[in-house]
Structures are given as C-alpha cells and as structure tokens.
C-alpha cells in the first residue's frame, strides 16, 4: 500500500503534463511549420500534374522532386489531420462516441497514407532510370 493521497497520485498526469496535451500541441506546431513550407511546393507540383495524360502523370511522379514533395505533403498532412481532428473530437464528443471517432480518424488517416505511398512508390520505382 502506498501512503499518498489521491491528489498526490493524480498530480502531473493531466493534459497539461509533459507527455500528453503539451506534446499534442507541439506535434501540431512542428507539422504546421513543415506544411507551411510544403504547401506552395505541393500546389505547384499539382498544377503541373493535373491535365497530363496517364503516361505523363506516371513519368512526372517518377521524378524525385514531385514524388518527394507529394509524399511529404500527404504523409505530414494526414498526421497533422489526425492531431487536429483529435482536438475537435475531444471538444464535441465523449464516452464511446469519442473513442469510436478517434479510432476511425486514425484508421482513415493511415489508409490515405498507405494508398498515396503505394501509388507514389509504384510510379517512382517502376521508372526507367537513365
């Protein structure tokens, strides 16, 4: 048996502690700086890619710059999405609804990352390197 009061046991474990709420905010901050840099680059890449025929799209995303910018934007973006959506879920939902929403937002984000990563890898790795 531990001789501490319930208050003592609870102190430092809340959202303001060093590992949950603060880290959540910090991750959102770091990813938003990354996305602020990536946003103009991603829009330029997409402005060149949309409208190309299929062979053109495959060739374009087999180049390092468009492939890496797109992969970074979508992966970091979906990670940022999970953290931002979690804020909204915590604000508006509670109990089982909250848990279900958190689980499905994470599953959805990883599915998008997997799909984008697969497509970009296929385009990058099947290219003939000269």
């Amino acid at each position, binding site marked *: 048996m531990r001789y501490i009061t319930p208050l003592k046991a609870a102190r430092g474990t809340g959202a303001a502690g060093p590992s949950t709420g603060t880290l959540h905010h910090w991750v959102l901050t770091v990813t938003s700086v990354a996305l602020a840099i990536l946003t103009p680059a991603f829009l330029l890449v997409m402005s060149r890619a949309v409208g190309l025929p299929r062979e053109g799209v495959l060739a374009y995303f087999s180049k390092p710059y468009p492939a890496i910018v797109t992969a970074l934007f*979508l992966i970091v973006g979906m990670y940022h999405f999970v953290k*931002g959506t979690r804020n909204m879920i915590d604000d508006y939902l509670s109990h089982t609804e909250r848990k279900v929403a958190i689980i499905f937002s994470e599953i959805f984000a990883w599915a*998008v990352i997997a799909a984008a990563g697969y497509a970009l890898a296929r385009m990058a790795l099947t290219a003939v390197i000269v």
Partner: protein
Amino acid sequence: MGDIPRGNRPLSPHLQVYRLPISAVTSIMNRITGHAMLAGVILIVWWLVAAVTSDHAFGWADWVMRSWFGFLVLALSMWALWFHFLAGIRHFFYDAGHMLEIDEGQKSSWAIIWGSVILTLISLLLFFLA
C-alpha cells in the same frame, strides 16, 4: 436553481440574435477548412492510385478530376488550404504572445479572409497557366 421562477426572460447570450465577432468566425473557419480540405485530398489520392492501376481506372478518376465537380472540389479545397495556412501562421504569433488584442485579432481576421481569396486566385491562375 431550478425551482426559482425566472419568468420568460431571454437566455444570455441570446443565441438567435448573437452575431459572432469576426475573430470567432475565422477561428471556427480554421477548424472547418482544416477538415473540409480532406475532400481534395481524397480526390487527389484516388487519382494517384488510379494512375498506377489501369487505363480504365485513370480514365474515370481523371474525368471526375477535370469535370466541373472536380474543379469545384479542388478550387474550394485550395481556398480551404490557403485559409488554414494563413490562420495557422496566425497561431504561431498567438503562441509567441503577439496579436492577442481585440483590434489586432479583427485586423488579422480580415487579412486571413482576403489573403486566402487572393492566394486562391493566384493559385488558380498558376493551375491554368502551368
């Protein structure tokens, strides 16, 4: 509290006639735009996966992407992205303790609204010229 006769007095703030301050509008718009631009992400990832799947799959995705519906989704997502971009940059200033006065919040709100419209128009121009 419940058994005190309160008459037919209005609630405070009276929600039907309460006009949100502009800084509150841009604050909630930051959350809405962050989630709404997911439509654009889904369309782009579908299009990327279709490009490595087959001519038939790409034909479908590319047709949707370049239809009026696809244009609407991409253009609105682009505006949402720029709005979220500018509102996110304002959060960096908030975190550093700046721009927290009421008049500064109102000015930065209008800057975000007009800035996002201007950046979207420039991006759309690039999309059609590049």
